[in-house]
């Protein structure tokens, strides 16, 4: 689905297919991201979410289709996980200023915006999981991106940690107006924070506002009704009768709302 817009889309993916050898991981994917919107990609493991991201940043050649980025588009990329070898000493500030000779002032501003103002002198290896992800976010913000790409950026964080992280993303969007395209497993967070959700499973299964996607049969076929929490939490709490799931979902609800 492409939305007609007055402004040119930041990212336009048109009929994208990605193959690894004989294995087709993505077929005919269409996708567009407009300035300022938060779009979330959900999908089971192996559904091609990360391949889609790799294709967008140019790390994977498409087998078919095309990807057009708005000319001069500034992308801020937050990787899924970043392993820094313990033999590599690097301070937060040095890490932040690796890219395009960012000024110290920009570095401080970006750390503020990511919610970790006091870390600049620390070694990257000494950060907690949550601090580390926020520094990655700060690094992505330093070039004043027009779009943020987040690939499961909260993997390894606990529920309150990832809820807080996504709230930070919303704050960043509100303050800078940058668009956000993210992959997430955490459906309950996805549903509350996104303008639009794309459900991916090798192809685009369904797409739309969180409420529309949550009630789509394709989505339910992939995620069921009691697994992810999103359906149970936001729309269909009364639909299912697994008591243990109920308790689980309530916990999600509590923590996501913190």
């Amino acid at each position, binding site marked *: 689905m492409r939305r007609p817009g007055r402004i040119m889309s930041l990212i336009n993916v048109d009929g994208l297919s990605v193959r690894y050898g004989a294995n087709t991981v993505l077929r005919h994917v269409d996708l567009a991201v407009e300035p300022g919107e938060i779009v979330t990609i959900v999908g089971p493991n192996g559904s091609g979410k990360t391949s889609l991201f790799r294709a967008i940043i140019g790390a994977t050649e498409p087998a078919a289709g095309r990807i057009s980025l708005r000319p001069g588009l500034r*992308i801020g*990329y937050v*990787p899924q996980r970043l392993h820094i070898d313990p*033999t*590599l*000493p690097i301070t937060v500030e040095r890490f932040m200023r690796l890219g395009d000779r960012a000024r110290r002032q920009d570095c401080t501003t970006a750390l503020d915006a990511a919610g970790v103002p006091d870390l600049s002198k620390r070694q990257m290896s000494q950060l907690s999981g949550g601090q580390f992800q926020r520094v990655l976010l700060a690094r992505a913000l330093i070039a004043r991106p027009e779009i943020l790409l987040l*690939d499961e950026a909260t993997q390894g964080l606990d529920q309150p940690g990832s809820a807080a992280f996504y709230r930070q993303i919303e704050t960043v969007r509100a303050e800078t107006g940058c668009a956000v395209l993210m992959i997430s497993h955490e459906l309950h967070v996805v549903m509350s924070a996104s303008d639009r959700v794309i459900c991916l499973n090798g192809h685009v299964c369904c797409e739309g506002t969180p409420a529309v996607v949550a009630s789509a049969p394709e989505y339910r076929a992939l995620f069921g009704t009691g697994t992810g929490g999103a359906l149970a939490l936001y729309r269909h709490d009364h639909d299912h009768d697994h008591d243990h799931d109920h308790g689980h979902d309530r916990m999600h609800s509590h923590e996501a709302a913190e």
Partner: protein
Amino acid sequence: MMLDDFMVRATLAGVGVAFAAAPLGCFVVWRRMAYFGDATAHAAMLGIAMSLAMEMSIFLGAVAVALTMAATVNLLAGRGYAMDTLLGVLAHSALAFGLVAVSFLSGIRIDLMAYLFGDILAVSRGDLLVIWGGAALVVALIASRWPALLTATLNEELAYSSGLDPRREQLILTLSLAITVAVAIKVVGVLLIAAMLIIPAAAARSLARTPEAMAVIAAAIGGASAVAGLRAAYAFDAPAGPSIVCVAALLFAILGLVSWCRRLGA
């Protein structure tokens, strides 16, 4: 003239190799390429044999074989064998074939030990020119691509999203490695080149807070090892190349102990 003294030439050669090996060695350590470095160096023996047979410069032969080695590894990687197995097979085969090939070159009298362990005391002015030229090239290559190399070392996707191609950065490191191996043969020999890459960089780790500092400290440790190793070799009538590596290893052990004690105290 100062360069007439063989000790001065040897010291300059050792320091030159140490300077090239330091920043490259940091990347070897950070990217866990230690065995790759070792394999490239061992394969250089085959390059030496070819150079002797064809009467061409050993530098060129070693660079050519090192690059071929890297290309072969990249080609075979991910086809059923683990990387360390693959490197082990290629490195030792190349070393063995090189040794056998050298033994067939009956026309020439060859001091095999000089290639295996270096012959730094016999460094000529021409050798010095090659060593410092090669070292300068390696340092210039790495310095000019430093931020890109670091980004690619940290994370492949991060590099792509910054508009870099990690494969090109890998190529630059491979090329630097080949040149470093080729210039270091005369100084420490094919068996100990990897030591000059890894030991100073590893020793510098506990003293450094940034990647740049680690490279500079590694160069200082490598340089000091070359100077002190040569002095020790002269004083104790020991082989020069291995003595340099011994000093580097001692510095590694001392710095490691100091940082361990400091951590216990803290």
